[in-house]
């Protein structure tokens, strides 16, 4: 399949109150072979999107910014909350503030009118990239199947045969690279047990001294490579940092009956050197989730996995591919914009630990995909299953496509740190009652070297944290990763954090949905249930709390 054919499978929803612009964009998109639906009001568009939540959902939304009634920003936010479809903004407004605002609200790109065909031709990349973050199946299909038929068993198989000579050539070239990667990419499933062992070993070594090589040796698990541990360690470090800087204050679902009851088997780690890094304030605000931002849910998507404690297997390349967007879509203007002053915001973060400070550059982005992968695998909801299938169909049929392979390979190169992602939160279910307990215990933990915050982290601080974390972890993640994270995180500007009136009601629903979802381990319902993805390690974090509290 070539790119044209792939575009022909995509459904785009274009929204603009200016009929001239709308007529043009429709014509242009059709010219690129996308399927297009046009509406002039965001409210109408939202209805359509909601109606298609479970079937035939649009793949991409292109929307104007300034519209009467609901404007593009609000529209964007709601899409992010409810459907998480990629959204591109398209406007005559080319001011910095507006463009940044668009990205902060979650747009994956911002095009200035008049937009040319060339810019539209590659918008499909956002669709693929967005799905990279999600369920793993599709990614399996098309990144693994460089050499063989897609597993989805669709009628697209015959398309596979229709290679252009160019893609065949490229495929051959990629095969070699792929084989090299195969050895490294052996998947590892980080079960709860394995992770506990990992944590224990890390504790014993001391977090500052825990190097992958030593960890691997001490863990002494067959088939576990240094690379597996290295990536897991990185994630763990990021988790700890985030935890201590209050990033988790919105993660509510940490009550974990399992932990309480059988928890002793995991409570053996002790706080060790981590204790002082853990942030008190976090759980205070977790209960105030209801008041938090709509947009928090976007990143919430990530955390829920952790919170929910799934134990799915994560193919490594699904996470690797999450960076695909960065590589493919150089939003150069946005690269350094908006990350503002990471160093300044770091100063605001009350965190003296060198470990934490050192890892401050990490972005949320990896967690997002990671957690959503965590969540996704074993129990996709119907809607999600369809999404998985849809993308499988889309992607599998293009699985031979050299572009995808290139991107996959590129991602593999740049994201080896992310390789071997897994989840381990297996036994942890979520409830709400332990929150208060956690808070109580935690409060009594004496602080140590680093900052100990016994009151609620301020919203300002939280935002600063987020901003600091947005600074892209420069492993090729580049501008787009940065601003995807920024889009996720910078949403928490004032009004967002406090919650808009429309959001508040939505949030109590979100909570209810979330808890029931967690219990059902079906986290994709409505997208409301998503929590901050960084909480994947949280249950383990919880164990520290329990320990200390004892």
């Amino acid at each position, binding site marked *: 399949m070539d790119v044209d054919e792939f575009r022909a499978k995509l459904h785009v929803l274009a929204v603009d*109150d*200016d*009929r*001239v*612009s709308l*007529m*043009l964009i429709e*014509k*242009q998109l059709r*010219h690129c072979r996308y399927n297009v639906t046009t509406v002039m009001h965001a409210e109408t568009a939202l209805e359509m999107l909601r109606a298609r939540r479970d079937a035939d959902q649009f793949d991409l939304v292109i929307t*104007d910014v*300034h519209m009467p009634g609901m404007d593009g920003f609000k529209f964007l936010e709601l899409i992010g909350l409810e459907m998480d479809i990629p959204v591109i903004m398209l*406007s*005559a*407004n080319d001011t910095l503030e507006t463009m940044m605002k668009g990205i902060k609200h979650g747009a994956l790109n911002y095009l200035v*009118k*008049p937009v*040319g*065909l060339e810019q539209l031709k590659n918008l499909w990349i956002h669709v693929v990239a967005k799905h990279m973050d999600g369920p793993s199946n599709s990614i399996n299909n098309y990144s693994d199947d460089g050499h063989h038929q897609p597993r989805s068993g669709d009628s697209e198989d015959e398309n596979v045969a229709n290679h252009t000579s160019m893609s065949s050539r490229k495929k051959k070239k990629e095969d070699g690279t792929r084989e090299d990667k195969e050895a490294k990419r052996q998947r590892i499933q980080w079960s709860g047990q394995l992770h506990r062992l990992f944590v224990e070993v890390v504790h014993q070594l001391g977090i500052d001294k825990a190097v992958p090589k030593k960890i691997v040796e001490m863990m002494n698990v067959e088939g576990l490579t240094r690379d597996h541990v290295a990536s897991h360690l990185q994630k763990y470090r990021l988790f700890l940092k985030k935890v201590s800087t209050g990033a988790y204050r919105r993660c509510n679902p940490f009550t974990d009956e399992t932990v309480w009851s059988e928890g002793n088997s995991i409570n053996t780690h002790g706080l060790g050197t981590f204790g002082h890094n853990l942030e008190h304030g976090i759980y205070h605000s977790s209960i105030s989730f209801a008041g938090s931002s709509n947009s928090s849910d976007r990143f919430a998507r990530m955390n829920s996995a952790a919170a929910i404690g799934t134990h799915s297997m994560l193919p490594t390349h699904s996470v690797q591919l999450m960076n695909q967007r960065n590589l493919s879509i150089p939003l150069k203007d946005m690269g350094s914009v908006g990350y503002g002053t990471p160093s300044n915001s770091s100063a605001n973060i009350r965190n003296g630990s060198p470990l934490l400070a050192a890892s401050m550059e990490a972005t949320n982005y990896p967690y997002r995909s990671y957690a959503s992968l965590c969540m996704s695998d074993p129990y996709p909801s119907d809607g999600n299953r369809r999404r998985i299938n849809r993308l499988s169909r889309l992607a599998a049929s293009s699985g031979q496509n050299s572009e995808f392979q290139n991107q996959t390979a590129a991602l593999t190169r740049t994201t080896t740190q992310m390789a071997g992602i897994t989840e381990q939160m297996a036994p942890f279910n979520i409830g709400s009652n332990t929150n208060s307990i956690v808070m109580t215990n935690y409060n009594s933990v004496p602080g140590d070297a680093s900052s100990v915050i016994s009151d609620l982290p301020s919203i300002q601080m939280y935002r600063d944290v987020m901003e600091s974390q947005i600074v892209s972890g420069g492993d090729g993640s580049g501008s787009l990763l940065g601003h995807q994270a920024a889009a996720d995180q910078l949403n928490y500007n004032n009004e967002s954090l406090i919650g808009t009136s429309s959001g508040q009601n939505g949030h109590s629903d979100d909570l209810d949905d979330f808890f029931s979802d967690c219990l059902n381990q079906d986290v994709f319902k409505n997208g409301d249930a998503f929590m901050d993805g960084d909480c994947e390690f949280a249950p383990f974090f919880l164990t520290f709390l329990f320990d200390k509290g004892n």
Partner: protein
Amino acid sequence: MAASPVNQLNAHISNMLATGLLDEHFTALRRLQDAESPDFVDGLVTNFLNDGDRIFGKLAQLLERPFVDLDVVSNHLMKLKGSSASVGARHVRLACIQLLQLTSQQKNRDEWISTLARGRAAFDEVRREFQTMVQLERQI
């Protein structure tokens, strides 16, 4: 002897491009027109002219009020900027850019009004030229 309608049309369009009334985006527009939508450009241009007319009318009305809501004015201007950009009407688009700058800077009213007048003149010019173009096209 009279040039063929097609030649006349092309000459007319070339002229509009040469004077800067239209930009390369208009050329791209024409390329989009195909057998499936032979009236695409005409339809687009006609919509632009109608909508533009309406916007200028609204702007004039807004200016007559004692207190001018600059946000509303900006919104109108932004719309016009977008639609003119979409059809490649360069002079109109540039006028919108100027007006938007003036609006955000909240420059004095007189300067704003004179710039608006220039914008209106540019719009009228492109309207005449577009109408000629549409007529020529219909003769083909």
